[in-house]
């Protein structure tokens, strides 16, 4: 988002088409990876190997899908890292977390495009994603051949980073689809309402609309 935007439709643009495509590629690959990965992790989830076409196909495809996710997530990380630097007003906002969880948003400190929860999630995902790539390559026997002790450590790192990602995913999906109304359309249609933008991200709202209202 660069500079003030002239509003035509009466809505506020939040994500351009390219950004939405990138996001959904990450989302789709993530779901495939999480389900097939859980199948390798715990026998209770073994039937989820069906998602990628059975046990052997899951073993073959999981790493390739992982590389796709990493690349597109990387694009997102490069695009959004500046917006996700934690600012002093984010700390003030965070102090009101109990109120926020109770849907009492009255008099919240003004924040920019992302709140501190989103920023912390962003950081957790960036770290997990790097750990997943590195440990995943170590575990990938089709392309790599590392000493067994290294593979053992990588296996544990891969599992922990994956669980962190999945927990973050649950928070992300719940907040965006179910909890904070009016958020989902930012990623499906690309826009949010003025009311949504003003309420949840007032600094960002003024930045992209050029002040006012």
């Amino acid at each position, binding site marked *: 988002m660069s500079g003030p935007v002239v509003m035509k439709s009466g809505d506020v643009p939040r994500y351009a088409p390219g950004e939405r495509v990138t996001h959904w590629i990450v989302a789709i690959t993530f779901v495939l990876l999480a389900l097939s990965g859980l*199948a*390798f*992790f*715990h*026998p*209770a989830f*073994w039937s989820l190997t069906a998602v990628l076409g059975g*046990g*052997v196909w*899951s*073993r073959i495809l999981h790493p390739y899908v992982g590389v796709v996710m990493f690349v597109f997530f990387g694009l997102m990380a490069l695009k959004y890292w500046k917006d996700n630097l934690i600012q002093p007003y984010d700390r003030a906002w965070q102090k009101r977390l109990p109120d926020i*969880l*109770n*849907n*009492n*948003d*009255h008099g919240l400190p003004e924040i920019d495009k992302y709140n501190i929860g989103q920023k912390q999630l962003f950081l957790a995902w960036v770290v997990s994603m790097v750990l997943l790539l590195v440990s995943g390559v170590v*575990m990938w*026997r*089709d392309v790599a051949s590392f000493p*067994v*002790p290294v*593979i*053992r*450590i990588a*296996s*544990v790192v891969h*599992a*922990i980073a994956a*669980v962190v990602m*999945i*927990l973050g995913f*649950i*928070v992300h999906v*719940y907040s965006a689809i*179910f*909890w*904070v*109304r*009016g958020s989902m359309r930012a990623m499906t249609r690309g826009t949010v*309402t003025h*009311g*949504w933008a*003003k*309420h*949840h991200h007032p600094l960002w709202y003024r930045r992209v609309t050029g002040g006012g209202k």
Partner: protein
Amino acid sequence: MALQSLNVTKRSATTTQPPSVRTAEEPVAKLIDVSKCIGCKACQVACMQWNDLRDEVGTNVGVYDNPSNLTDQSWTVMRFAEYSKPDGDMEWLIRKDGCMHCEDPGCLKACPSPGAIVKYANGIVDFISDNCIGCGYCVAGCPFDVPRISKKDSKAYKCTLCSDRVAVGLEPACVKTCPTGAIQYGAKTDMVLRAEKRVGDLKERGFQKAALYNPAGVGGTHVMYVLQHGDDPERYSGLPSNPSISPWVSVWKGAAKPLASLAIGLAMLGAFFHYVTRGPKDEHAEGESK
């Protein structure tokens, strides 16, 4: 398909009771007396022949080991260690390497594919290749570096202790062929007794540290060694002196599984009950002015 006539006591990635109605299946063991081995490799040949395996013809790497390592085609390999004694004398320690058939198998613990690895009631740890997905977790789980993934079909292979022969009352092929009687096979209790007798003999002959190798760290093994220098198994081409399943593997395929599943479940329940108790957040909530 697992051998139908054998009880299964452990089955990979399985939380329910495996087939176990049969009675009177005694734990077996193969006893390899290193002090009697002459390094003729007849056992390697017998293994190839019985299991229809033919490794690629390799190159001489400067020692008698041939092939130089275990492969998907070579499930047992003689390892020749030249040990220089402090008095300047040289000792040739020849160890028949291969799967140890652990009572607590690290490969089976690590395996994510249901039924790809089983442990029969007789103690044999067997790879059921048809269920193998080729992930190589068994390689990471094994404390002895035994399983090998085939380049041809991406499945894991190792010594079966001739489970197919044992199931019909035959001894393993390597045992049958050994010309010096260095490899013996039978009930594990008998093998332990026989080993103890042999260890006693060796001690009388000046090998004060002779011992049976049946490492407790993996619950004992169903392939055991009589070692002249039982105080130093590492001397035998790096036989681990105290093998056990790596703590990393134990965390990965142990505590991490219930903890992670619980965390994921609680997160989903937490989100659901937050919605049920607090409901969705509207931008005009709390009577805020627009």
